[in-house]
């Protein structure tokens, strides 16, 4: 037998053997496989639906966030210039149409731009003469002002006989009441000073002030356009004994009525006014007084106490940990018995502000300075040190 014949026989042998190899493909087995494929198809359908729903929800969320971001980013930039406003009062064309204050011919740097947003269709707003875009008269409706502070050219808004002077802020002024005989001033950032009627007060961020307003316009507006001294001398001084007697609510009410001029520019008076504000439940209004102590009386031995109190108000009451951290640092640098507590609270403030590295660094400093400090556990927790 030739070699090729042998190979051909072998090929036939393998073919014959291959035919013998056959799985037992019974109907039960066949239907088990078919059912498994069906289950797989169902699982796939569920997975596809879940993925589609998740993706759709994600896309809607992303789209929503993008829209909100875009609108908040674009809104101020599409604002027409205030140069388009005449000196005569006029009705705003539509609600919430923002206008920017500034000189169209000599555009100001973005940081100097006053952004004015009219809040209702009946808003009547006119620029004040000789104010270089930093003064408006509100005759009706309401408007929101975002104003960079310039102490040499204070921004003012007049509404009837009420004068609102910015101290670097964003605020809203709106006529309210059935006869529009009340003026609502809401401050979003910074502070404003409100003068008019029996009111001469500062309003801080997050606070709202409502004052009666007369439609008789102020005759003159300027740096020295303060109202004449009122017959409020008694009111101006009456808050102090109330605060000293622990009647903080009443003291705060009197203080608001009397205005900031009722608080003398000395540390004791400012601290007392701050106590009246914060202990009557108005912590935001305590901040300006405490800041005035630090600004004007930094060398006073009580400046450390003012800084510590400011830190506590900012951290515990107002939820502003970054600024609180700075205040506690200031309190710590003043030394004295509050230094240890100030450092411990600074650790906490830095931690809450998300500044983990700084918080840890301060915590290690605390452990070094006060190895058996009474705030060791809190410091270790906030500073994330063992």
């Amino acid at each position, binding site marked *: 037998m030739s070699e090729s014949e042998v190979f051909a026989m072998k090929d036939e042998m393998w*073919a014959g*053997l291959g035919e013998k*190899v056959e799985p*037992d493909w019974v109907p039960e087995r066949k239907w088990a*496989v*078919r059912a*498994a*494929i069906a289950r*797989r198809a169902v699982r796939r359908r569920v997975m596809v639906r879940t993925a589609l729903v998740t993706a759709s929800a994600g896309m809607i969320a992303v789209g929503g966030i993008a829209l909100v971001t875009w609108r908040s980013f674009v809104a101020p930039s599409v604002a027409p210039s205030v140069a388009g406003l005449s000196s005569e009062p006029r009705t705003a064309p539509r609600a919430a149409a923002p206008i920017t204050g500034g000189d169209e011919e000599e555009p100001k740097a973005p940081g100097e731009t006053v952004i004015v947003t009219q809040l209702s269709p009946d808003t009547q707003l006119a620029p004040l003469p000789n104010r270089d875009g930093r003064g408006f008269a509100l005759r009706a409706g309401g408007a929101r002002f975002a104003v960079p502070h310039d102490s040499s050219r204070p921004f003012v808004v007049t509404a009837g006989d009420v004068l609102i002077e910015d101290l670097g802020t964003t605020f809203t002024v709106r006529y309210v009441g059935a006869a529009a005989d009340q003026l609502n001033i809401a401050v979003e950032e910074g502070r404003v000073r409100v003068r008019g009627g029996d009111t001469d007060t500062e309003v801080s961020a997050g606070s709202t002030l409502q004052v009666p307003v007369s439609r008789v316009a102020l005759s003159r507006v300027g740096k020295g356009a303060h109202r004449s001294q009122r017959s409020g001398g008694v009111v101006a001084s009456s808050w102090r004994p109330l605060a000293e007697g622990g009647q903080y609510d009443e003291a705060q009410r009197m203080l608001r009525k009397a205005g900031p001029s009722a608080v003398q520019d000395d540390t004791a008076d400012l601290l007392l006014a701050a106590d009246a504000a914060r202990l009557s439940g108005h912590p935001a209004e305590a901040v300006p007084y405490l800041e005035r102590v630090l600004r004007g009386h930094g060398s006073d031995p009580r400046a450390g106490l003012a800084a510590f109190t400011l830190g506590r108000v900012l951290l515990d009451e107002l939820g502003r940990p970054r600024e609180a951290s700075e205040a506690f640092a200031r309190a710590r640098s003043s030394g004295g018995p509050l230094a240890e507590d100030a450092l411990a609270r600074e650790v906490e403030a830095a931690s809450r502000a998300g500044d983990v590295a700084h918080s840890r660094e301060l915590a290690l400093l605390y452990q070094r300075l006060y190895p058996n400090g009474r705030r060791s556990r809190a410091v270790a927790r906030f500073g994330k040190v063992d």
Partner: protein
Amino acid sequence: MATTPKLRLARPLPELVAGSPVEFEELFARYGQYVAKLASRMLGTGDAEVDDIVQDVFWIASRRLPQIADMIQARGWLATVTTRVVRRRLRRRQFRKLFHASPYRADVPAPGATPEQRALLARLYEILGSLPTEQRLAWSLRYLEGEPLDAVAAACGCSLATAKRRVSAAKKVIDEVFGDE
């Protein structure tokens, strides 16, 4: 003596006509056993592993029905897919062998075989297990399944020359081992 091998050729079932639409249920009913048999011959097993392969193949088919022109061409298409799925299994088996001390023992399903044929088949699959996967698949399709070389090339996803080379390389080893039998 004539050297023409008496191989079974892959032919469609008689009642099938070209261009007949492909329905999944009919596809599974008609070719389920064919896929199981093909997988069994390439793997040398008839257990749950074959069921898994049939499931995988028809799962792919259920998602790609529009790619199958008609029921006649479905057979070749299923053979190609089955070869790919079996190739993955064999590679996984080889990977597992790296971590197992005992070699894989084939339990060949051959109900009509004599004891001698069973012993021969067990030996054959041991030898096939030592071959590279591509050579094993090509040889199995050519000699155990009886497919022509162009069908082997199509199922293996390679050129005709490559298919010939693979079949030849495997055949050389097998002929050496079974030379005296």
